[in-house]
């Protein structure tokens, strides 16, 4: 690409102004699935950051050699390989979390954010900007996961990272955990609330 890219905006834009989840609305499926508790949400976020950053770098390094007719297949092979490696590492070093995440680590392969970034950015840019783009988008995704996980675990189970934070006297006075928060539909509602808050602060994003 001839035009000069601003590395800073490549890294930081996806955090807010061009967030993959709340602005581009990609990767919603996994947001619904893994955010009932904060710990799996965080691990999922980190896994996506790792896979996205490295697949971006690898594709960017290979970009001039990849035949255009099979580029999607090449991207899939790279992403799938990285995802399996992450899954294996989790099984070896974080067994409990990997049990909770079960199939969703495998489903990172189908996460639209990955294919989107590989197609739109890594295929046309040098490895370093591609790495920053991967980290930026991964972090943008992870932020939303963690925020959603925070509210769902706090309101749904009264805990954070499995530690009880809602004190007993609240329950004694009739407070009870909202079971609906643990079910997938509430993830959509929480994400929608985040989008609402985000749009009302960023008027230029409103349509």
């Amino acid at each position, binding site marked *: 690409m001839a035009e000069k890219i601003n590395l800073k905006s490549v890294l930081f834009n996806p955090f807010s102004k061009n967030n993959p989840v709340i602005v581009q609305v990609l990767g919603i499926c996994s947001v619904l699935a893994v955010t*009932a508790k904060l710990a799996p949400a965080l691990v999922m976020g980190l896994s996506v950051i790792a896979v996205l950053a490295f697949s971006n770098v690898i594709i960017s390094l290979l970009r001039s*050699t*990849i*035949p*255009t*007719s*099979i580029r999607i*297949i*090449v991207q899939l*092979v*790279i992403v*799938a*390989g990285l995802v*399996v*490696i992450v899954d*294996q*590492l989790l*099984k*070896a*070093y974080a*067994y409990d979390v990997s*049990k909770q995440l*079960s199939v969703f680590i495998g489903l990172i392969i189908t996460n639209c954010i990955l294919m989107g970034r590989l197609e739109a950015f890594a295929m046309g840019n040098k490895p370093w900007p591609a790495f920053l783009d991967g980290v930026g988008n991964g972090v943008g995704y992870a932020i939303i996961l963690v925020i959603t996980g925070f509210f769902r675990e706090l309101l749904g189970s009264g805990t954070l990272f499995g530690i009880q934070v809602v004190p007993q006297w609240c329950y004694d006075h009739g407070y009870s955990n909202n*079971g609906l928060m*643990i*079910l997938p539909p509430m993830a959509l509602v929480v994400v929608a609330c985040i989008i609402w808050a985000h749009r009302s602060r960023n008027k230029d994003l409103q349509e």
Partner: protein
Amino acid sequence: MNKQSNAYAIIYIIVLVVVVGTALALTSMSLKDRQQENANVDKMKQILASASIETEGLSGEQVVSLFDEHIPAADMYIVNSEGERVDGNAFDVSIEKQSKIKDVAERELPVFQCQKADTTLYILPVYGAGLWGPIWGYVAVEADGSTVYGAYFSHQGETPGLGAEIEKPAFSREFKGKRLFKNDHFYPIEVVKAGKGVDNPDGPDYVDGVSGGTITSQGVGAMLDNCLAPYQTFLSTLKK
């Protein structure tokens, strides 16, 4: 070489797949031992949970030593449907495979004999099908071979809030004190609609199923039926 030619594309993808495949094989090989260890620790936790032995927050090694303390290797054995001991490593028996053997005489039935305080518990593994995928668990039977001391159930992908409730203590606690033998007749515990069970001195004991998780609850009942019935002879010899 022309990068758009078919030959280039084919060679490219072959090389790529071989490289990625090698990387995956190496990762898998180097992590295999650790993963197996984790899976074993997880299984130990589940077995201990059925005997109400708390493992929450313990590290892998602590779980292993706790397991050895309660269930020494010599106290894990395999029996056949006649109640006779057969050779083999009870811990490594795949309950999934055994539960699918139609002829119960051919099944290998693992028993984990657990020492807890003064009592001896016999922990029996069970495996079956829920609504969306497999369900499994462990049932701890007291020394009389009939009274259930505790149970643990888990699942792969039952619906959260509905079928998945079988893994909650609220469900497994119901099994405590239920009896498998009534008047020398063996009855596996039945899982029925909540409130529908009638305790009958001459019939099977009941537990309440999970509301909204009917098929999973039925699966638990069928699993207990299929996997505990072969232990009948073994359990009846304990009664004396």
